[in-house]
């Protein structure tokens, strides 16, 4: 355990969401140390700043910062997120859509029944194995309710948020400045390295040299320090994840606010729809190998039923990650470290976990320099990337669309050994959770339920050969009981708009 911090000065390069999150977290966690934190942000380089979806880990991140939802959510036009509904990923009419929930305490109640019916479905029985009916989050989303625990129904709820990333960066900037982070607007022209290759300083366009003993690279896809200066090798996921482009636009809000992200498969990718309190953030993620940006824009415009005059933004994405997230005296956080396309909104999960794990690694370091856990940190990060990549990739492998070359290509590559094993286990009707545990996949972002929801939700089952009547009575799940439980539970939760209004008032 460190009794003093090995760093006196930390420079954070980049003032997007990742930069200000890092600044806040480092400032808060190491507030008792004699530490200077400076963030250098260029006014010439914009942030991506689309409507951002998140995973439940961000809730814990805000809790550690001591920032309450009522403080930051209204300031960032934020809404609650119960999960993601996937639409049109399957050509089977019984599986036109499914919900991937954030799995909550109450979902454990019928977990056994869900798992049992999955097994029976594999054995050819025509039982109900679609995940939607088992899960509370799905019902809450359907009713546009918020996943906030009422006092009289106080079961643990896992949930996340949607928010305007630009506004969040501004909010966190104010917090960071209150917590003694200094801020400088400058464009970095040069990076100076020491003999050992570590970063000595950065030089701004005005010629000022800024030194530090540690650097956090939040420079986005440019990866100014980790990629360009330290030349850490890059592991591309382009072979397995085809999407490399996105077209985005904001649209008006609806009368009531959904509490879920919508992910709709289109001809050469998929479209997100993220509700904020003032608007929807929309984007179409596609593969430029299969569709030109103009065609993508046109398809997306028709999908959203927008007029010809609608103005879209175009983005390019690089999917993959640097082999190390922490190299020498540089930690990369956010896009500068890696990115696995936005399908399950994992970008900020990686950003927050990276900085949380870094602080833990330094605090628990056995050497004075704070680097004893660096290898373990990088291994853990690589594992996280590869496990999450497998889960994202499974969305494409499990699709059953035949309408375009894109969707055929999306499932035509060879998956990783681990993903192959998971798929084989599933097709054999054996226990996927056991394999996930053996492969340590469930330690990462997506637990057993997520994997089963994906495969069951996309209808990856053999044809049914027996009716439910062929089952012994004791093995028939009473779906009415589950429906009653889920619907009755949902009654206790507030309407999403009411919950948002209450936040604003408080």
């Amino acid at each position, binding site marked *: 355990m460190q009794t003093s911090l090995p760093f006196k000065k930390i420079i954070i390069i980049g003032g997007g969401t990742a930069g200000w999150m890092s600044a806040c977290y480092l400032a808060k966690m190491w507030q008792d140390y004699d530490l200077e934190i400076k963030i250098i942000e260029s006014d010439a380089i914009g942030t991506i700043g689309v409507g951002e979806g998140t995973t439940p880990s961000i809730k814990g991140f805000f809790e550690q910062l001591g920032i309450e939802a009522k403080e930051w959510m209204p300031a960032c036009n934020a809404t609650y997120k119960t999960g993601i509904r996937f639409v049109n990923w399957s050509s089977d009419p019984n599986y036109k859509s499914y919900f991937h929930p954030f799995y909550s*305490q*109450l979902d*454990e*109640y019928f977990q056994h029944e869900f798992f049992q019916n999955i097994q029976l479905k594999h054995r050819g029985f025509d039982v109900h194995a679609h995940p939607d009916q088992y899960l509370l989050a799905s019902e809450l989303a359907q009713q546009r309710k918020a996943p906030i625990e*009422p*006092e*009289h*129904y*106080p*079961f643990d709820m896992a949930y996340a948020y949607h928010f305007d990333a630009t506004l969040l960066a501004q909010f966190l900037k104010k917090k960071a400045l209150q917590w003694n982070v200094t801020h400088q607007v400058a464009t970095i022209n040069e990076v100076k390295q020491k003999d050992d290759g570590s970063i000595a300083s950065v030089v701004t366009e005005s010629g000022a040299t800024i030194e530090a003993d540690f650097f956090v690279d939040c420079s986005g896809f440019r990866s100014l320090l980790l990629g360009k200066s330290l030349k850490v090798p890059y592991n591309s996921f382009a072979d397995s994840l085809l999407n490399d482009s996105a077209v985005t636009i904001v649209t008006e809000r609806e009368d009531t606010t959904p509490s879920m992200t919508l992910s709709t498969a289109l001809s050469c990718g998929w479209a997100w729809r993220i509700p904020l309190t003032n608007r929807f953030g929309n984007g179409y993620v596609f593969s430029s190998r299969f569709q030109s940006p103009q065609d993508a824009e046109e398809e997306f415009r028709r999908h959203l039923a927008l007029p010809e005059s609608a103005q879209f933004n175009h983005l390019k994405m690089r999917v993959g990650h640097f082999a190390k997230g922490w190299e020498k005296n540089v930690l990369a956080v956010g896009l500068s470290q890696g990115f696995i396309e936005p399908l399950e909104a994992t970008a900020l999960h990686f950003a927050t976990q990276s900085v949380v794990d870094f602080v833990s690694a330094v605090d628990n370091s056995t050497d004075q320099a704070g680097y004893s856990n660096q290898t373990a940190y990088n291994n853990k990060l690589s594992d996280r990337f590869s496990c999450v990549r497998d889960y994202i990739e499974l969305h494409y492998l499990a699709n059953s669309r035949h309408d375009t070359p894109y969707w055929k290509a999306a499932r035509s590559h060879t998956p990783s050994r681990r993903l192959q094993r998971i798929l084989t286990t599933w097709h054999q009707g054996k226990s996927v959770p056991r394999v996930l545990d053996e492969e340590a996949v469930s330690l990462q972002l997506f637990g057993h339920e997520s994997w089963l929801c994906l495969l069951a939700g996309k209808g990856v089952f053999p044809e049914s050969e027996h009716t439910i009547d062929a089952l012994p009575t004791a093995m028939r799940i009473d779906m009415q009981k589950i429906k*009653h*439980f889920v619907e*009755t*539970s949902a*009654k*206790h939760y507030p309407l999403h708009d009411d919950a948002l209004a209450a936040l604003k008032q408080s």
Partner: protein
Amino acid sequence: MLPIPQNITIVGLNVHGLLTALLLRKTYKPAVTGITLVGLKEEDSPPKAYIAGKALNTLLEHFGYSEANWMRQTQATFKLSNRYVGFSEQEFSVANASEVDILHQPLMLELSKLKRQAYQLDLSLDDFFFAAALAKRNLSPKAQDFPFETDYQYQVDANCLFTLLQKIAAEHSITTRPSTLETLQLDQHGTLKHIECEDQILSGDYFFDCTQSAQLLIGNMPDFRQETLPEVRINDRVLTYTLAAECCASEVVTTALDCGFVLQYTLQDAVHFQYHYSSKFIQDPQAVQRLERHISQQGYKKVLQRHLSASQAYLVSQPWIHNCLAIGPACGLTQGTEDHELSHTFAMLEQFVSSIQSPDDAKDVIKNYNHRIKSRFVYAHSYHSTLQLLNSRRNSPYWQTPQDANALTPIGRSLFSQWLSGEDLSVEPILDINGLTAWYALFSGLGHYPTGELKPHPKSRAIQDNIQDMCRKLAGCCLNFQTHDNLIAEGKHHANVTAV
């Protein structure tokens, strides 16, 4: 295969006899099966309260009596838990099962194990049982839009129940003969041919003995034998007081006194105290004084009735012999701190009906019936004897009397050994008596944890936070439930309106 009953004779005009008649009538239509109930009602019936399970409600609803209606007529209240006071340093509850408990049962199992491994933990298993949380707040088991089921029972006035059952029997083709049994006639195989009651001969293909401890039929069957249950601190006397009460609790309270224990049942407008004691250690007049002092300490004053009776634990070796079945206390009586008398009766009759439907050989069916019914008594007795033997009171000769360690039944011994060795408890429970968690509550409540030097647990803070979080959740869930008093008052109101 056994024949479907066409002519049933039941002896014993009491709650058990009437329940037998009605439960059989529910299954067998009058056109197929004649049911005759023989017996005289006891004059000046002593006050008594029963604990009844949901089977009673199912039966009475079948005959057109809603829960609110029959509860009003029998002065019934709800029961969610049995709270034990004075059996160890801290009082503890044995609560009915609730589906809410499933969500934190893994935590309960883990922590009880850690505490048995000599970790220093501030742990009361009461905190883990939702029904106990409801009972402690005097809430009812009824809530709107709360999808978790919580098991509950009823506290019922025995005399009111008798009156109601008698009325229903009269309305549903039960022939009642108010006479006393004089003789019975067996054939050469030992099968009961007929009985004679005041010049009437009543035959039947099945005879049900509901004559309680008199055992007028089963006691005269050729293979009759009675077993004594391994007794501990035998209580041979029951002193009952009924007092006026203004509010009603949704729990039974069992309090250990110097020479026995007192069961406290709450009915609508009344409270029953049953003092089970041993005449070897306290004389009747002193017992009266002791109970009156206890009642006074509870704040009750207005005595409505009191009664003293003898009590003894027993069990017949064959509850079903040929065509004669012993039902209720005629079959057996355990001296429990938890009353299973009616639940045994319901179980016996359900088992009888399913036996009749069995395609198996009649001998095997009867053998299986006898095994199952006796198992119920032994299981109930195991729980009670474990409580009596393992409590930590040593303040009177009654409690100081050395106990035979072998008096623990095999079930009790096996479970206690599992508890002491830190294992998860494992027994096939008879759920309508006491589930597995009741055994955890018992061993934990009696304080059977390691003493001496305890180890601090490295995560004790997180553990206490978890417990607090769980208590917060249970308290939150309680907000959905109606208060017991209000629900009972509403039931009365509803019943009155219906009557008008």
